[in-house]
């Protein structure tokens, strides 16, 4: 059985991957993925803001609010949600109800 061969620039790991805004400015990095019991990825946890590790916040952003495009060094992940809204969104805390930013369509 032959395995599928995929060029490295066509795939990327999500953990630690940068998410950019409209103007290609870095918004934050993906630090976790949230999936439901059906295996659907519902949201990513973004680590946003801060300087030298101070003032960072973790917020949940809907998977459907992310845009993916080809880039020179692999896929580019972006979102149209305004940086202000992301940075001031409710904290993502493990074990608490999760408010997902940009979840427009309710998953049936």
């Amino acid at each position, binding site marked *: 059985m032959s395995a599928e061969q995929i060029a490295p620039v066509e795939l990327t790991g999500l*953990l630690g991957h940068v998410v950019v805004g409209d103007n290609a400015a870095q918004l934050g990095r993906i630090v976790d993925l949230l999936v439901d019991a059906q295996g659907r990825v519902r949201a990513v946890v973004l680590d946003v803001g801060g*300087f*030298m590790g*101070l003032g*960072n916040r973790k917020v949940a952003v809907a998977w459907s609010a992310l845009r993916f495009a080809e880039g020179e060094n692999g896929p580019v992940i972006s979102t149209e949600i305004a940086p202000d809204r992301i940075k001031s969104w409710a904290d993502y805390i493990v074990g608490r109800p999760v408010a997902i930013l940009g979840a427009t369509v309710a998953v049936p």
Partner: protein
Amino acid sequence: MAARQSLRGLDWLFFFVADLQTSFGPFIAVYLTDHRWTQAQLGLALSVGSASAMLAQVPAGALVDALRSKAVAAAVALVGIASGALFMAMSPTLWPVLLAQAMYGFAACMLNPALAALTLGLIGAAAVAERLGRNARFQAIGSACGAALMGACGTYVSTRAVFWLAALLCVPALLALRTVGGRTASRPAVVTAGPPTEPLRHVLLDRRLLAWLACALLFHLTNAALLPLASVEITKRADKNASLIIAACILVPQLGVALLSPLAGRAADRWGRRWVLLAGFCALPARALLLALVTDPLWIVPVQALDGLGGAAFGVMTPLIAADLSGDHGRFNLRMGIIGLAVGGAATVSYTVAGAIATNLGAQTAFMALALTGVCAVLTVAFAMPETRPPVPAQT
């Protein structure tokens, strides 16, 4: 009188040491996130770092006391920190990072008391307070430059370059240490050669040390969470330039410490340690209260400037009080280690508890609670802390 060159060397030593130490600390979370660490691994690495930084305090202090040459102790610690930084930079994978964190924790616990002990051996008893003020000044300038340099390096080069830079900065630090050398004053404040003979019971049962521990504990219980909580509020509220405002909140207090530390040293000699402590500690609840009231993120910067007052008082008085209590043959480094342990423990509790209050009841409530512990800190200084300034020897 110690040679001028040695004293200049001491300035640079404190500058470079503070400079390179800014790389370890909260920045490690950014670095490891950048290298695809999971949250669980990240939490483990940070816990190992803070645990070793706390558990090593007392043993490292005792070790420095036992070593004959404080210069050698400082050199060993610097090499340990450089190796830790190299491990971090070379391989951001689990085991090297855990090892680096543990090494850094122990080395930093050795370095700070060793540098203070080196100073005390170099300076005559009469000039100690002023010199400790000068040390704190160069340390603050080093921290400010370090935060700016490492921040720029992390943003514009790479997060990994920050640790290469930290390792590289150990070289000028070691060179500065060489110019300080093992010189001693003719009548040093603390005789640093040979292990101290003071019995352990004498250190542990000293009521003045216990009072100072209570003050230090309450100070850091209040202080440690203020900047992290304020930074999160800045991220939430500032529409843009949040990172720059946070950077200003780190730099501005350091400039305050740089300006005020020599004054704190001189004032401690003229009016006594208690008055300097009272002035510095009063800034603490005031800052917490103002942080609860201020809404515009830009106004957080001038409020943070108050940290310069508290930082200068605490930074200069800690080695000074330890030196007062140790006399000239006492266990100075052990006392520094015990204070370091109290500070580390209080800081950890501060983050955890204030962080929990902020998530459950809001940041404003957390700041108010911290203002309350700050008031307790001031009251402890006012009513429990005795004056430790040794009686002025008769002029001959």
